[in-house]
């Protein structure tokens, strides 16, 4: 195990002080002189045509400076998602959104917006906008939406009724033949709920349009560069005239703003253009719930076939996801669901068929895990069912079948590392796996159980989407370092981890490195923060840039010290000749008192020396990342109150192979936060709609995410199966924390009660009914 100076250290985050003192600026804190406040009018209907819209009264209200609708905003079609607007062939973009349209397709869809001198006035003005709607038939379930009698929600569905974009098919081997060769086949359909990111800062944007046409947008986007491209397209302005940046902090994301922050940016820009003043739009929490992307719910069918010795031989996976009213990430998500579902186990015959379906509910888009959690609850449940049928221990069955490095799989890059076996071993130890079967006394009303779930993921979205990174390392005249990267820090700690990488490569202390991030004006293109990619991919670019700068430094130093560059190394900002004793010498004085040759020079002296000779060291990193699989195994212990149906998650042991933990405390934090989201996904979180398509869960009071009084014991275990393609061996971790959790908890509930759930969340009422039914059926 190599020892690094700053990589692998849990250094204090560089943004911690600002955040701990309340001085960190977020978009919702950002103000400009003369700034106006924007509010949005939203559709009360799930599907309707706007017959007429009259804004004259609103415009007349004193203090109102702009009113926008579909009539006076660009008729430029787009997709709010970063990757979908500019897709990698052969995938075709699905563009189906305008800032405002004359048809509304879900309760909450944007109808108009107002900018006024105060929020209260803007809200009053909204009430004065007269809209006449013609209600249209609506549909809310994806299977219903595919029936011939369902209303058409968009006009561009070539693959079938309301099917969004393309159907994803991943074939491998011959599943039909494979199933025939199996001794045991289990097939089951599962239902997944709609859930929400509930990041703490709602969608927000501040837009300023200058008289020369230059546009600046401060927003909560996770991807400033792609967001700029989308805005440029919408408003017909060159990229170079738009600046998008975070101010610089973002209050979480979890996928809700990969690309535009719902419609916050374009609405703010449209209002600012009309008003001639800067405009700030902050979504209320209710708007954030109703009108920003959710996770895809839907139906996933797993058919798994095995030989009687437990070898998996065939897997057929199908998904029909609820895409909601607009595409957003609805073609990529089923793709990831399939790709990840098929990548966990070594199975020669596999097939995936999946897609999303338009319905008249809030658009579904990216949320942490991006299809993978939807794949693994079903798959891990079926694997446990298989273990029971075969009479095998669930761990044994998994260990027998999980991917090994070098095994073939359906992904277009090799599996070069896996620490999953170690994850399973260490997680099992932490939970006390051997206690299974002896947890409950006969007649107990509260039953305990232990279950496991495993999974994999990606370390960025190459080659599925446009995914590349650039970074620039500039050595300042005094030897301090400036690093520029286009990724934001949405809370994941990139603004600390990336400088750690640069500092390690350059051989300088962390305090020497300052980072500019998340600003299109001062950083080169980077896709941004999504797909668990920032450390792996942006980090690789940072390493490349730092290595480039280091090369230039050593070349220059070689000339300065009169040795060949291969003999030089840098440590603590000192460039020195390796193999020579670093005793007293004349470094820094410029005068050799002893008459001996110089054996070292500080970076400070060297950089200034170069500056006086008209030179600066500038390192550029341009990379297209490879990809690498992180692996994870979650073990859950639950207690089920059979008299009420309540499921309490007591403990989760979450073992994650992250390749290399660049900052272990940050990695643990990512795992722990993910696990708790996974617990919520399994037992309490969901958004359901009433008969008119109105979401019932539209506030923090109603949406049941876990509070501090609901948390289980969480043991985050870091495993490091280094991947050759990652910076210092690192792989992605951001999304992985909730991929296998629901499966582990559902398997634990089965272990406790003997009742299996094919639907999450396992709410108290659902569990109670299932337990009652089981009791009645055994009488």
């Amino acid at each position: 195990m190599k020892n690094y100076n700053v990589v692998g250290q849990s250094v204090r985050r560089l943004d911690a002080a600002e955040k701990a003192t309340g001085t960190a600026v977020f978009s919702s804190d950002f103000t400009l002189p003369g700034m106006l406040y924007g509010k949005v009018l939203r559709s009360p209907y799930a599907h309707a045509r706007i017959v007429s819209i009259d804004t004259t009264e609103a415009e007349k209200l004193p203090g109102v400076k702009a009113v926008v609708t579909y009539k006076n905003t660009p008729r430029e079609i787009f997709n709010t998602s970063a990757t979908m607007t500019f897709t990698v062939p052969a995938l075709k973009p699905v563009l189906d959104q305008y800032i405002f349209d004359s048809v509304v397709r879900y309760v909450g869809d944007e109808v108009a917006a107002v900018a006024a001198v105060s929020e209260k006035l803007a809200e009053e003005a909204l009430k004065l906008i007269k809209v006449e709607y013609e209600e249209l038939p609506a549909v809310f379930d994806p299977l219903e939406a595919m029936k011939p009698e369902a209303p058409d929600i968009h006009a561009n569905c070539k693959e079938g009724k309301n099917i969004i974009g393309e159907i994803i098919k991943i074939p491998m081997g011959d599943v039909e033949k494979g199933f025939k060769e199996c001794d045991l086949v289990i097939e089951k359909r599962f239902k997944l709920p709609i859930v929400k990111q509930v990041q703490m800062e709602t969608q927000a944007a501040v837009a300023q349009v200058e008289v020369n046409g230059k546009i600046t947008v401060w927003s909560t986007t996770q991807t400033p560069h792609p967001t700029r491209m989308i805005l440029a397209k919408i408003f017909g302005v060159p990229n170079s005239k738009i600046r998008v940046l975070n101010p610089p902090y973002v209050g979480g994301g979890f996928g809700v703003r990969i690309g535009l922050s719902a419609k916050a940016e374009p609405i703010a820009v449209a209002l600012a253009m009309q008003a001639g003043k800067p405009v700030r739009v902050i979504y209320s929490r209710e708007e954030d719930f109703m009108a920003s992307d959710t996770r895809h719910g839907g139906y996933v069918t797993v058919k798994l076939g095995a030989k009687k010795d437990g070898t998996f031989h065939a897997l057929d996976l199908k998904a029909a996801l609820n895409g909601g009213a607009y595409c957003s990430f609805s073609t990529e998500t089923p793709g990831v669901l399939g790709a990840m579902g098929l990548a966990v186990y070594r199975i020669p015959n596999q097939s995936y068929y999946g897609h999303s379906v338009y319905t008249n509910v809030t658009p579904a888009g990216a949320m942490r895990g991006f299809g993978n959690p939807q794949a693994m609850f079903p798959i891990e449940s079926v694997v446990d069912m298989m273990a029971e049928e075969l009479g095998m221990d669930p761990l044994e069955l998994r260990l027998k079948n999980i991917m090994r490095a070098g095994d073939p799989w359906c992904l277009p890059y090799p599996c070069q590392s896996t620490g999953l076996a170690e994850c399973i071993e260490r997680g099992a130890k932490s939970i006390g796996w051997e206690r299974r079967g002896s947890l409950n006394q006969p007649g107990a009303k509260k039953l305990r159980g232990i279950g496991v779930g495993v999974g994999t993921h990606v370390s960025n979205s190459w080659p599925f989407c446009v995914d590349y990174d650039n970074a620039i390392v500039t050595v300042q005249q005094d030897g301090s370092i400036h690093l520029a990267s286009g990724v934001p820090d949405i809370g994941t700690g990139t603004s600390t981890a990336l400088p750690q990488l640069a500092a390690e490569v350059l051989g300088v202390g962390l305090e020497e490195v300052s980072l500019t991030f998340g600003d299109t004006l001062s950083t080169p293109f980077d896709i941004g923060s999504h797909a668990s990619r920032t450390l792996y991919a942006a980090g690789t670019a940072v390493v490349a840039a730092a290595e480039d700068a280091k090369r230039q430094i050593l070349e220059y130093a070689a000339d300065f010290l009169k040795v060949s560059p291969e003999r030089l190394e840098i440590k603590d900002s000192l460039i020195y000749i390796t193999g020579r004793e670093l005793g007293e010498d004349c470094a820094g004085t410029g005068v050799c008192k002893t008459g001996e040759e110089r054996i070292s020079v500080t970076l400070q002296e060297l950089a200034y020396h170069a500056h006086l000779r008209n030179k600066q060291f500038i390192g550029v990193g341009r990379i297209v990342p490879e990809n690498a699989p992180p692996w994870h195994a979650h073990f859950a212990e639950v207690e089920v109150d059979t008299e009420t149906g309540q499921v309490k998650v007591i403990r989760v042991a979450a073992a994650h192979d992250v390749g290399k933990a660049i900052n272990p405390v940050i990695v643990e934090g990512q795992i722990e936060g993910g696990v708790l989201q996974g617990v919520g996904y399994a037992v309490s979180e969901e958004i359901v709609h009433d008969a008119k398509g109105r979401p019932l869960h539209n506030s923090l009071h109603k949406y049941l995410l876990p509070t501090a009084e609901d948390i289980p014991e969480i043991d985050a275990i870091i495993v490091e199966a280094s991947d050759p393609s990652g910076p210092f061996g690192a792989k992605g971790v951001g999304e992985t924390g909730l991929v296998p959790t629901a499966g582990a908890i559902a398997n634990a509930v089965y272990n406790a009660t003997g009742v299996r759930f094919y639907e999450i969340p396992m709410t108290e009422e659902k569990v109670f009914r299932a337990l009652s039914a089981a009791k009645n059926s055994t009488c």
Partner: protein
Amino acid sequence: MLQDYLIPETVEQALSHLQGGKGRARVVAGGTDLLLDLANGKKEAGVLVDLTRIPGLQEITLEDDLIRLGAAVTHNQVAKSKLIQEKASVLARAARSVGSLQIRNTATVVGNVVNAQPAADAAVALVALGAVAEVVSPSGKEYIPVEKLYAGVGKSVLDSTSQIVTRIQFPALLKNQGSAYERLEQRKALALPMLNVAVVVSLADNRFQWARIVMAPVGPGPVRATEAEAILTGADVSLGNIENAAAAARAQANPRSSALRGSREYRLEVLPVLVRRALEAAVVRAGGNC
């Protein structure tokens, strides 16, 4: 739009502000429900009259075996009060279960009662304790049992533009009396109850002298399970009797189906479990055993 926010120093001043408001001025204590209702148009007011600084209303007192809570007493005060924990623990537990600590620091128990939501935790406990509200208005002072304050779902018999509840009082529990609170909730903070049950029992020689069993939300206000109480009056303390009482309580309950907090059928199934658990716990605290 609020035109004024007044903080009177005496009850008389508060009454006079209300009178002056001619129906547009209303009482506020913590305001955690009221401010949201005003913001979304469910209630209206031109002037708010804040009771929380009136001396004497912030206290929890015990006098002649009667516990009194002033109108400004917060949920957290009640939850942490040694007096309430020892002599009316059902109320301490009920108050503790509401919202979050920040809400409990602001929201008052009296306000919770006047807001008249059917499953208001503190109110359910107060009905079990036989609590009475001291109501002051221009026509004088009257005492109304908390149980009788409900005019309909979310509707109090009281008119907050002219009447002020200054205190709520109830007898402190004696050594042979015990109480318990059971709450079915979807998470441990920031959650309304799916069901709540408050129980107070009085025992002698391991027999029930009387019991008060209050359940919610199974009607427009907290509901006394009077038939269950009748079964227990004079009965031996036994699991069998407790289970009978629980079944009788279920028969008197009429929960609606909530899209958010459980169907009617589910709540009817689980209600007797809560009643049973509450009775078992209250019996133990009263020194009895099943």
